């Protein structure tokens, strides 16, 4: 990879990224929080959140993006979210059945309804977002050149 690439792309791309990356993140949060009312859900929302960070990484280079979301934090978030999802299942187990929807169903069409479904969506989206960003970061950081071979120019 050349030196330029690590610094990121041109000023135009950077400016537009600065304007859009927040919107993308917000859109992801909207998709995930309304997963039980409208189309979307934890997975789509989580991937959009990951994409917003990927976007940042592509435009500004890996250092800026990794400063915003360090690798240690991603793996911690991922593990914690996985544990949280399992605990939701186990809480149901305590009250009767594995994955029992133990919260009240609430009023239809509201954001806070449908028992454990919104909770699961949030947890899944954190997990998916952190996990996919971790994969992408790992693949970007991988030095993608053949070993023991003169570089062809």
């Amino acid at each position, binding site marked *: 990879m050349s030196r330029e690439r690590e610094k990121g792309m041109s000023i135009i791309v950077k400016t537009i990224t600065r304007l859009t990356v927040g919107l993308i993140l917000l859109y992801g949060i909207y998709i995930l929080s309304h997963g039980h009312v409208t189309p979307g859900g934890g997975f789509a929302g989580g991937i959009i959140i990951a994409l917003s960070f990927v976007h940042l990484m592509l435009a500004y280079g890996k250092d800026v993006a990794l400063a915003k979301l360090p690798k240690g934090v991603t793996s911690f978030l991922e593990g914690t979210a*996985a544990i949280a999802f*399992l605990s939701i299942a186990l809480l149901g187990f305590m009250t009767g059945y594995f994955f029992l929807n133990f919260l009240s169903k609430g009023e239809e069409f509201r954001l806070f309804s449908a028992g454990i479904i919104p909770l699961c969506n949030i947890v899944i989206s954190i997990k998916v977002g952190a996990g996919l960003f971790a994969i992408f970061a790992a693949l970007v950081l991988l030095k993608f050149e053949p070993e023991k071979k003169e570089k062809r120019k």
Partner: protein
Amino acid sequence: MMQAMNIIPIFVAIPLAGSFIIAILGKRPRWAPDLISGFTTLVLLAASILAVGIANTHGVLVYSIGAWKAPIGIEMVLDGLTAFMLVTINLVAFAVSVYAVNYMEQFTSKSKFYTLFLLMLAGMNGLVVTGDMFNLFVFLEIASVASYALVAFGTEKHELEAAFKYAIMGTVASLFILLGIAILYSFTSTLNMADMASVLAQKESKNIVLMVSVLFLMGFGLKSAIVPFHAWLPDAHPSAPAPISAMLSGVLIKSLGIYALCRIFYNVIGMTAEVSSVFMFLGVLSMVVGVFLAIGQWDLKRLLAYHSISQIGYVVLGISLGTPLGVIGGLFHLFNHSIFKSLLFLDAGAVEYATGTRDLKDMGGLSAKMPATGTTNLIASMSIAGIPPFNGFWSKLIIIIATVEAGRYWYAFWAVLASLLTLASFMKVMKYAFLGALKEKWSQIKEVPVFMKLSMGVLAAICVFGGLLIIPDVADVFLNRARNVIMEGVDYAGLVLKSIR
């Protein structure tokens, strides 16, 4: 009843929790991954032995996840076959987990190894325990994805190449299986296995059953490495770290391949004479081809991998005979093979740990320096070659008797021949690796550390006393229960659906 049922989700929840915790903790403190993994597998082993008892007293137990009754929700089913597979899987997993404490010191990132190992275990347990078609696919994918990564764990040239080959073939197999499930869903409009079986019994369609059978045969055949689909196994199994080779050869190909084939063909689609003769032919073919390819090998782990193909052939032959004796022989051989093949791979790992080589020509006289490894390897070799009184003898004997009883004299002949060739092949291993004069360059080597010896010793003891499992009283609790599940065929649906109400 309610109390007993609660054991079923444990088999998935505990290994998942263990792996997530290890992933969060990382490598600080250093001993935590070893301890958590050992503890998890020990609890699972205890739970699965308990499950055998529960399956005995209650017959078929069904757990409805989220309190949704079938066919609306996902069911977990605990019956004889499930309990049998759970014991097999968790026994080997425990031995492997103890062994890995010392062995995995050769690799970096031990915590990632344990995370993936427990995820693979969770996948296998979930696959065995589930009663839902798509859920089976999901857990199959967990176990497979974890195993692709584990094969590449050493990140050397050959390991990556083998992992890629394995991953591509495994993914294609998964796609075939998923397409089969999609066709079955469209035809029956349900995903629950028991419900699906009852719909299929009412609604005949030759074409769909044929298509789905071919898809499942290719998919699960690839996963279990029956002969025309075996190309990935001799690369993938030797490339993995030794504990993982033991898991892959010992239980992964059986739970992902053989168990799923049995469950789907016997209990859901219903076995027909044509399908069972195809299976028998493939079984005999694997048996013979595997052993012929194994004889010429000089790489110890590769030789063992070819023998896995051959031994899987015995299991398939026994189970597809469809007679009570044949099925019990096949299942018993499945159990025995898990034990002695894991032990053989662990021994090969111990040799590699001490000497750093896998080439048989390079070794010699290692028994003098490594008595524990030499003895356990001798026991396992005699088991796999079918020498009395070790466990492998009894199961092979039952399979051969059953084959003769069924009037398949040629198949019986090939089974005996393959057994003899296996014996020859392992005499070669013993002669070149462990017996004879010690070579000069190995005078400095030491016996392997205590945890490795411990787990090899446990498995060797089971090899010696495993034959006791076919004493009628013991067999009634363990093997016969599993056989009954296969023999009852599509009546499985009725039993499960009755137990839900």
